[in-house]
């Protein structure tokens, strides 16, 4: 059993807001759902499967399904942080392949910017029943210093430099200049990244993603539904998922779960990393991108620094055009969860609907990859391979 060719992404919508103090979180979810359904040419009444994660207000899918008054026969609220929405695409395809639903709606939304959340720099106490909390929270783990420890170890083990990491931000900024909705539209230089203040060594302020309100939604449909729609056909070829943690104390911060989810997705799709024309790579931090590029097999382990340098990720000039919307580093990181926007930009590229300045010519094969949770402790990884039919 495979999901290869069993489902299509028919609708995709990224909310244009980046600051929404005047909207509720539920409203943002619903506005994203409406946008994605209209994009697909479907209506709310066509939806029979609903997928959401921890950003959805209420118990699992129940409150949002009720808010939108959906009549459902399949729900899934798997939460693996920012990677959830890539898992949801895969899980929706599995459900569609089994006949459990035919039009699956996936939503994400949140308002960390309006709510003044110190997303990256404040330790979060969490639920004391979470088994790791008492051994970590008192030491002050934050989102930034956890990823910073990955960067520090990568530098130590492979000679990766801050200049190389900075190139990832530079590439994202080159793309963001064409996105009118992007939070940071100014093209930056390596020097500007290095001159920005250290948040947690060795990561600078400009190594970090933005904090934004907003959201997004996807509509995943069965082949027979896709045939009835007048939209470019974006087919799911393969998917892989893998959680990774501290391995019982055999901590290894130099690789991510992409080492496991990537090969599963490539095997199911029957393609190789070298075949990929465009990649959406989760970019909570520059180091996140570098590690995933290695783990997905775009270069050898430890060579990520050389691979990303000198503009190699910039569309039109580089070998691996990435995050052509500006990504989490410059465009948008709604609800502190960047997986949804990764899929959306991959869909734009495959449809030929990206900004002309960053559109990959004849883009027929794309990858989207997400990391959720923390690379420094425990995280979910999810990889999707998508094809324009």
């Amino acid at each position, binding site marked *: 059993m495979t999901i290869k060719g069993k489902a299509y992404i028919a609708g995709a919508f990224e909310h244009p807001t980046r600051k929404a103090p005047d909207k509720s979180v539920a409203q943002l979810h619903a506005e994203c759902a409406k946008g994605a359904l209209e994009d697909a040419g479907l209506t709310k009444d066509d939806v029979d499967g609903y997928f959401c994660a921890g950003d959805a207000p209420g118990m699992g899918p129940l409150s949002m399904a009720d808010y939108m008054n959906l009549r459902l026969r399949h729900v899934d609220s798997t939460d693996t942080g920012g990677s959830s929405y890539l898992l949801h695409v895969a899980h929706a395809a599995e459900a569609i392949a089994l006949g459990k639903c035919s039009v699956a709606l996936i939503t994400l939304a949140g308002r960390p910017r309006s709510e003044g959340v110190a997303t990256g*720099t404040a330790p979060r106490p969490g639920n004391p029943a979470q088994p790791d909390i*008492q051994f970590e929270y*008192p*030491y*002050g783990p934050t989102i930034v*210093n*956890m990823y910073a420890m990955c960067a520090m170890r990568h530098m130590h083990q492979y000679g990766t430099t801050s200049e190389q990491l900075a190139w990832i931000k530079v590439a994202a900024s080159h793309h963001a200049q064409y996105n009118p909705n992007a939070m940071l539209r100014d093209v930056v230089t390596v020097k500007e990244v290095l001159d920005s203040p*250290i948040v*947690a060594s060795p990561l600078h302020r400009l190594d970090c993603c933005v904090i934004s309100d907003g959201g997004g939604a996807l509509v995943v449909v069965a082949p027979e539904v896709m045939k009835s729609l007048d939209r470019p056909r974006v087919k799911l070829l393969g998917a892989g998922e893998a959680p990774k943690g501290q391995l019982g*104390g055999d901590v290894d911060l130099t690789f991510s779960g992409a080492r496991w989810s990537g090969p599963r997705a490539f095997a199911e799709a029957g393609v190789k990393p070298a075949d990929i024309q465009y990649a959406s790579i989760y970019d909570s931090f520059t180091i996140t991108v570098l590690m995933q590029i290695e783990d997905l097999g775009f270069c050898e382990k430890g060579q990520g620094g050389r691979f990303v340098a000198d503009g190699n990720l910039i569309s039109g000039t580089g070998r691996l055009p990435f995050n052509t919307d500006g990504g989490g580093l410059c465009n948008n990181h709604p609800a502190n969860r960047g997986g949804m926007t990764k899929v959306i930009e991959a869909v734009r590229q495959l449809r030929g609907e990206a900004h002309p300045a960053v559109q990959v010519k004849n883009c027929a094969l794309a990858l989207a990859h997400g990391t959720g949770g923390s690379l420094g402790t425990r995280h979910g990884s999810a990889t999707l391979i998508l094809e324009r039919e």
Partner: protein
Amino acid sequence: MIAMESRTLPAPEPNPETKSYWDAAQEGKLLVRICTACGRAHHYPRALCPFCFSDRTEWKTASGNGTIYSFSVMQRAPVPYTIAYVTLDEGPTMMSNIVDCDFDTIRIGMKVKATFKPTESTARLPMFTPA
């Protein structure tokens, strides 16, 4: 950079599975959990071995000696501090803080030894300082 000693440490919240660990820390002892079935030590401590899933696990007093696996100085904090993963001589790697030293001198591979710091409650936290 040398840290001020004004950082208030949150107290851990022990549970029946972990109470012995925190009781020992209060007395200045670092425990590791060892599996008598497969012989391996792990961290954080669990009743069931994360390697072989045996329930034959027990406490062992660690030497308190270790090596810095990675670290980061959290600059953007009211009181900067250094978070780290320290690989214990007994095998497992644990999250902790590096304290009582000039943060600029901290390096991966540095030998460190345990020290126990007071928290907002009576509990003490195992931390590490250059050996």
